[in-house]
């Protein structure tokens, strides 16, 4: 299979679209946790009951469509190879937690891969909906409608006082986690993001790097999400998140401008060096790749590099992860082999742009 073909199949269709503010916001996501009222939660439910839940979803929702989300396919964890699971995790279609569960769990994925409904994760149902760019309101509206669509057939565990009941007390109430994935290179280079994080935390929101461990944000990609799910309405939570993200966008734009004014040539040097590394390296570790991709993307956003599409960061951050590299190679690779594969995949990908 050619690289172009592989990419076309690997990258979810919605990811190729540009959304509002997509120079900074990569994607918006709403996740709703729901449970059946009359089954124990997956953690302690018997295998028979878990199977019943899976069978129910297969019977009621397989190949069903709801509006733009057509032809839901059911994917059972028990039928997947470890690499296939890993690929789904890397695409953010399933959680690492679901991938660990060998049996009686799965997911329903819409054809456009915008919606994934995880079954028997920590909760019976986890509805996940993605939009490209900054579109939280739209994501919430659509997620809520999907939720109503499921509720036509599912008796939800709901309590007047506590709201939607979930296995973990951190999700009870709305059961909602709204999150936004942002590329904040200028705030990271100037270390402003570290100063802003405590203030954001005080608003009940969390900032964390999605790639990398601990506080480190590999590729300068951050996820901002709500921590609180109880005592506030979905709209209020999304509004709070929205206003913080809006401010982060403004700050990032300002920081980019300041960087360009104050140290334009240094920034240009950094960007083109990274571009050089990506174009020429023969062995590249994921951290270095992420750092260079972030620089390249910044160069594209600032108009220094104009023949490469913005979506290259989203695309290559996913494709250069271990699962995808191994799927493309159709083989299990050790870390060193992966670094070689990663370098050649990036080189090939950049070459595609030069051919056009």
């Amino acid at each position, binding site marked *: 299979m050619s690289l172009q073909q592989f990419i076309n199949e690997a990258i979810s269709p919605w990811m190729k679209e540009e959304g509002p503010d997509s120079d900074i916001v990569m994607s918006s996501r709403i996740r709703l946790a729901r*449970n059946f*009222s*009359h*089954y*124990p*939660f997956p*953690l*302690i439910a018997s295998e028979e009951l878990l199977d019943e839940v899976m069978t129910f979803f297969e019977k009621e929702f397989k190949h069903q469509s709801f509006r733009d989300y057509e032809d839901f396919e059911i994917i059972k964890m028990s039928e997947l190879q*470890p690499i296939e699971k890993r690929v789904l995790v890397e695409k953010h279609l399933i*959680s*690492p*937690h679901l*991938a*660990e569960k060998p049996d009686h769990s799965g997911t329903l994925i819409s054809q456009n891969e915008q919606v994934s409904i995880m079954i028997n994760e*920590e909760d019976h149902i986890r509805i996940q909906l993605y939009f490209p760019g900054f579109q939280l309101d739209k994501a919430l509206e659509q997620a*809520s409608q999907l*939720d*109503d669509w499921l*509720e*036509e057939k599912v*008796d*939800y*565990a*709901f*309590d*007047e*006082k*506590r*709201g*939607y*009941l*979930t*296995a*973990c*007390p*951190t999700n*009870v*109430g*709305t059961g*909602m986690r709204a999150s936004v994935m942002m590329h904040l290179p200028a705030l990271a280079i100037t270390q402003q993001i570290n100063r802003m994080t405590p203030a954001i935390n005080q608003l*009940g929101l969390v900032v964390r790097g999605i790639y990398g461990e601990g506080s480190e944000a590999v590729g300068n990609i951050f996820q901002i999400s709500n921590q*609180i*799910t*109880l*005592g*506030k*309405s*979905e709209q209020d*939570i999304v509004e709070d998140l929205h206003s913080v993200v809006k401010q982060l966008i403004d700050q990032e734009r300002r920081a980019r401008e300041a960087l360009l004014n104050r140290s334009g040539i240094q920034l240009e040097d950094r960007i083109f060096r990274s571009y050089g590394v990506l174009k020429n390296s023969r062995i590249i570790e994921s951290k270095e790749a992420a750092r260079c991709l972030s620089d390249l993307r910044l160069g594209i956003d600032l108009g220094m590099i104009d023949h490469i599409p913005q979506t290259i960061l989203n695309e290559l951050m996913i494709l250069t992860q*271990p699962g995808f590299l191994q799927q493309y190679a159709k083989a*299990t690779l*050790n*870390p*060193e082999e992966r670094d070689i594969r990663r370098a050649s995949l990036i080189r090939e990908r950049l070459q595609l742009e030069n051919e056009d």
Partner: protein
Amino acid sequence: MECQECQKRKATVHLTQVVNGQKTEVHVCEQCAKDKGYMSYGEENYSLNDLLSGLFHSESPSPFSSQKAQSYQQASQLKCPTCGMTYQEFARIGKFGCADCYQTFDDRINPILRRVHSGNTRHDGKIPKREGGNLHLKREIDDYKSQLKQLIEQEEFEQAANIRDKIRTLESQLHQGEGGE
């Protein structure tokens, strides 16, 4: 010992695998253990769990207050009639066993919820269409009541009377609904 997968790093993960009755030993480094699926890669969840169950345990009183100790004793004997989860188990894993656990441990969970949700203990968001029952109606009445209070404070009595009538209509709907069941 070096990692048998990459033969580069030190093996820090040692496992015994039994496949079809055949026993094999595996010695790999942490990186390979994750990559080859020997180890789970969702450690983040665990730290959150640990943190949470830490919160529950801090509910346990000091040994000096005997009254509190007694109530703690009672709480730890609580057991969910539906799924059989005890309060102790819940405190250990930080997760509920089923929807009814919320009722069973109702008296005990407010402090936990307050800590996790910035002082909140009551839901104020979406109500499901079917399972929500007449909660939509109740929510609407509550909204009107707070409006009413405001109008009275502002001495807008004419508008207040309108709102009061609306509340009465809704309340009679609510009672009819309940009486009909």
